[in-house]
């Protein structure tokens, strides 16, 4: 692929006797929404861990915007424009929604060795934060503490935080997890609106969402990509059907 935004080459990771990632290679074109699906235990968390920098691969390389980021620490990758949302909600529970997102903005607004001025009064931080909240539909919950938000609202907040860092690549780790049908539909709309403005790697179980949004889909089984292509091709692929979709395609949550 010419000028891929994210290029993963031969990524491999073992945990003792278990092969979690087996020479994974694929690439994302700028602006595409690429979904990765696969049964539980396929190695999706390990893949994400290696992409974000929390897990060090045994072998292989990750290139982001042409740059080798394989050895970079987590915070550096974020600085380069790689943002992620967490599968299990991971927020600052004692702060308000706006505080949460403002922190994400702050991380990308120069250094924070400022000891005097009240950060909550900095318009340059609060405005982009409010905008990000608006984008995911949480504008009216800005001043609510995270502990008081519903599960669906927390999932949306995760996305808002990732967006607030003005990323080039958005890595979404099962954003629909635990959401009811209404909330899921709303989130699909949000993501649809985001398509094209940035590149998205979507890890998901929710097949409705995947087939509604994805430009291309890769299927991960036992640490290996067994198929990669546009949604129609994936639907038709026999290996994929056997391993994952079975006869009950489009069933919803895997």
């Amino acid at each position, binding site marked *: 692929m010419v000028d891929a935004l994210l290029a993963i080459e031969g990524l491999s990771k073992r945990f003792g006797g278990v092969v979690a990632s087996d020479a994974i290679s694929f690439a994302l074109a700028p602006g595409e929404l690429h979904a990765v699906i696969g049964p539980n235990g396929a190695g999706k968390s390990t893949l994400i861990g290696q992409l974000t920098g929390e897990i060090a691969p045994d072998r292989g390389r990750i290139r982001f915007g042409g740059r080798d980021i394989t050895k970079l620490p987590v915070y550096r990758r*974020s600085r380069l424009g790689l943002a992620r949302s967490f599968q299990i909600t991971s927020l600052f*529970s*004692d702060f308000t929604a706006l505080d949460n997102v403002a922190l994400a903005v702050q991380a990308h607004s120069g250094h924070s060795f400022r*000891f005097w001025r009240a950060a909550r009064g900095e318009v340059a931080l609060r405005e982009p934060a409010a905008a990000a909240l608006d984008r995911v539909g949480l504008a009216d919950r800005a001043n609510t503490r995270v502990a008081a938000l519903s599960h669906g609202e927390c999932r949306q907040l995760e996305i808002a935080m990732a967006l607030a860092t003005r990323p080039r690549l958005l890595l979404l780790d099962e954003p629909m997890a635990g959401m009811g049908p209404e909330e899921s539909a709303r989130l699909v709309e949000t993501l649809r609106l985001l398509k094209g403005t940035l590149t998205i790697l979507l890890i998901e179980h929710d097949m409705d969402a995947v087939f509604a949004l994805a430009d291309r889909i890769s299927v991960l089984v036992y640490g290996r990509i067994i198929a990669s292509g546009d949604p129609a091709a994936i639907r038709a692929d026999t290996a994929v059907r056997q391993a994952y979709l079975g006869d009950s395609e489009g069933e919803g949550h895997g």
Partner: protein
Amino acid sequence: MNPRLAVNAVVLAVLALVPVYAARTGDPFLMTLFTRVVILALAALSLNLIMGFGGMVSFGHAAYLGIGGYAVGILAKEGIGSGFVQWPVAIGASALYALAIGALSLRTRGVYFIMITLAFAQMIYYVAIGLDRYGGDDGLTINQRSRFGGLLNLDNKVVFYYLCLALLLTGIYLVWRLVNSRFGLVIRGARSNERRMRAIGFPTFRYKLVCFVIAGAMCGLAGALLANHTNFISPAMMHWTRSGDLMIMAVLGGMQAMFGPLIGAMTFLLLEEQLSRITQYPNLVIGPLLLFVAIYVNGGIDGLLGGGRRG
């Protein structure tokens, strides 16, 4: 009126008026007691910066009381009596020690962090015991308090008290600004969810280290004050049970409150003092009280007064 504000106001009023009351009743011990309260409140404030707001439970914070105190004592013994030299050295030496042990300790987490900070405090405790020239285990009397040219006479108890109080209140104000600044939000965010902080792009280690150094420096100043107050330095200033006392004061007062450490210090020291007058065995009350607070009380006294959980 907000009960917490009321309590804070009363505390301030009491502290401001202690010298007046002491002069009226002719009780010199009152001044001694309250000066100690104010100094240890400053030390507890510095601990609370890293512990309450930063989530770094340091079990070796009394080390800085010792370093600050010994800076004053050693310089005094060597003939350097000027506070303009002694106090910056006290602060600087504490900051350096904090930098060194912070760089190593902050690589660990949870219980290991508690243990390694304890170990580093013990190390410097034993160094002090080994300093024969400066009293070793017995300690060293300081004959002359820090001199500040003609500006301040620290031998005057009232002057010294108000100086300590001023420094404490300045400290509280500075901590308040710090905690709400960009830097403060990073520290508090790291306490709340460090993994998240890194994921959004913060190199948390360096911020925690700087916070650790600031807290050490502030406690070093408290150490210099303490040495002046007692005219005495000894390794006992840095014994690990002293670190425990500071932790108690911070937790008792309420770790999320600006006035928490002060209220905690006042409560703890005054309680200890009063109980000692009533009984020969004050810890038979204090021990279970601490246990009770540990089991049932959230947010210390500030929490009891209605202080909410702020992030």
